[in-house]
Structure formats: C-alpha cells, structure tokens
C-alpha cells in the first residue's frame, strides 16, 4: 500500500506525471503504452477507466496526499455528466489548488 508521503508542493507538471503513474498502476502498463495520455484525456472516454478503477485511482491520491486533499469529497459533488467528462487537467488543477 502507498504510504502517505508528505511532499513539498508539486507543480502542475509534477502532478500530471504522478497522475500518469497512478493511472499506469491501476490499468496496467501494457494499456497505457497504447495511449497518449494528456491533460485533456477524460477518464471514462479516453482512458476507458471504469468505476472500480476510478476507486483505485482515488485511493492512490488519498494515500499519497493524505488529508490535505479530499478527493472523494470533491468527486461526490459532481453530477453524472461532470464525472463522465472529468479530464486529467481538471484533477491536476484541483490538486494544485489544494496543496
């Protein structure tokens, strides 16, 4: 299990790389290799992540950032359309603001 790491503030590029790492860990390297993951990539359409994979991804964010980021709470305020259209850039911005 990932330990809660107390990190210095990350810039958006560093957060993006970290998110890419989490996505790779969740869906597997062989799938990620075929994808072009960008800030615009949406979780459901582009990355084809299903809900249980998004749960795993959320858990990784929680484990990494600890209580400074209420990622699940943030997601829970979104409606279905927002969740479906959620892209990596929006998450990177949210995490950057929370730090």
């Amino acid at each position, binding site marked *: 299990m990932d330990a809660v790491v107390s990190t210095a503030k990350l810039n958006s590029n560093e957060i993006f790389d970290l998110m890419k790492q989490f996505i790779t860990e969740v869906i597997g390297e062989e799938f990620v290799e075929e994808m072009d993951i960008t800030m615009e990539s949406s979780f459901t359409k582009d990355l084809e992540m299903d809900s249980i994979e*998004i749960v795993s991804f959320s858990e990784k964010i929680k484990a990494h950032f600890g209580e400074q980021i209420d990622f*699940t709470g943030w997601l829970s305020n979104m409606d279905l*359309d927002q969740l479906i259209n959620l892209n990596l850039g929006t998450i990177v911005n949210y995490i950057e603001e929370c730090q």
Partner: protein
Amino acid sequence: MPIIEVNNRGVHIQELNKGAAETVLLVHGMFSNLSIYYFNIAPILAKHFHVVMYDLKSHGLSERIENGYDLNSMTDDLVNLLDSLGIDKVHLAGYSFGGLIALKMAARFPRKIKKLAVIEAPDPNDDKTRDIIDDYSREFLEHYVTNFTDTTKVKMGKRQMERNHRMYEYLFHETSIKSDMILEKEFFSAAEISDIQQDTLLLYGANSNCLGAGKKLKNKIRGAALLEVNGDHNIPIQEPVSIGNIMETFFNNG
C-alpha cells in the same frame, strides 16, 4: 487499495470515517461492485457513521471464487468479514442482489444487525425476474451504459469490453452462480422473512419493475416502511444523493 484476507480469500474493502461510534455496511448488487456507493452514497453516510463497503466474491477487486453464491454462503462471507474487522453490530444496506443478502443477514444473524435498508431487492420468484441471471446481466449493462458512456452513447472501449466479457464468462461458466441463484426462488415465501424484527426501510424506484417485490416485503416484514424514489431499478445511480440522505436519516433516528 485495501485487500484483506478473510478465510484465506482476498476481499476488497473500503472504509470511511473509521472513528465513528456506529457502522453502516453497504452491500452492492450482482455484476456490480462497491463503486456504486463509493462516490456519493458512502460520503453522505460517512458524515455520521463509520462506513464499510466491500466487493462480493468474484466482483470488483475481490478474489475469484468458484462456488458459494447462495444466500447462506453470501451471508457467511459477510459474517466472516465483520468478525475479521472486529465489528459486532452494524446498520446494513443492500442493493438488488445485495438487498437479498441484507435480508438474509437480518434473518440469520439478527443480533448483528441494527437497522435494515433494502434497496430494489428483486423477488427471485417473480415472473419478470424468473430468468434471474439474464435480468442481472441486463441490469449490469444498463448500469454500464448509464455510467460510462456519454450522451452520444459512445461504445464501450475495447479494454472494458474485454474486462466485462471475461467477468461474464467466468461467472456464467466457471462458477455456481446460476444454479445457486435458482435455489433461492422461494426466498420471499420463507418464514424467515416474516420473522425479521429489525426496523426496515424498503427503497424502490417508482418506475421499477421490482416495485412489486418491495410491496410484497412491506406486507411480510412487520413495521417495514416502503419509500418510492424517482427512477427505476437503477435508483442508486439515478438518485444517489436522495438515497444517501434518506438512509442517513433512517439510520440516525432512534
């Protein structure tokens, strides 16, 4: 992601608000997983309660198991889970097939269950749900289409198609899930249903083809309340905030 060992089997669980005095345990439906609660319903309940979600065997991230899908086995699994978490008593909620598991828990282990919320549990003997496996598959696909395609109905991607196909193949052809479910046809007629003593809330979609099952349960369980929510069988996806708030109030009172 917490995978814990319960009877030497890997079970995926998620917990929120661990320090709270009372626990609410949430059981998902067939071909689904704990994510049906994770994003909306569980965070609402976690304002007051310790919330535990788990993936049923061969579902979500829990270990694949070839047999034991009848309600006795499924409730044995749940009791073992409670024991390994050191939890004595819970408020229990279950959706669809998980609702049947919740009813069976209340009947078999009444001392472990405080209040009971049953969401859209189908009658295993209903004409409309007689071919139970087909119904559950449709439900799963509907869930999938509602959740993971956009308004233009983008087709399931290759990787998800393969994942789903693998799960169906496994559950249909390599486990006892079909034959175990057929054995439960008479469950709603069993005396154990009428003997349920817990405060019981039945939540059904006003347009659901399972609403008749909810009415049947209301007549059988003494003092049970039946609440109709806007939507059909998929109310946890269609009205997650309502479902969360209604359950929070129900479990909180008294």
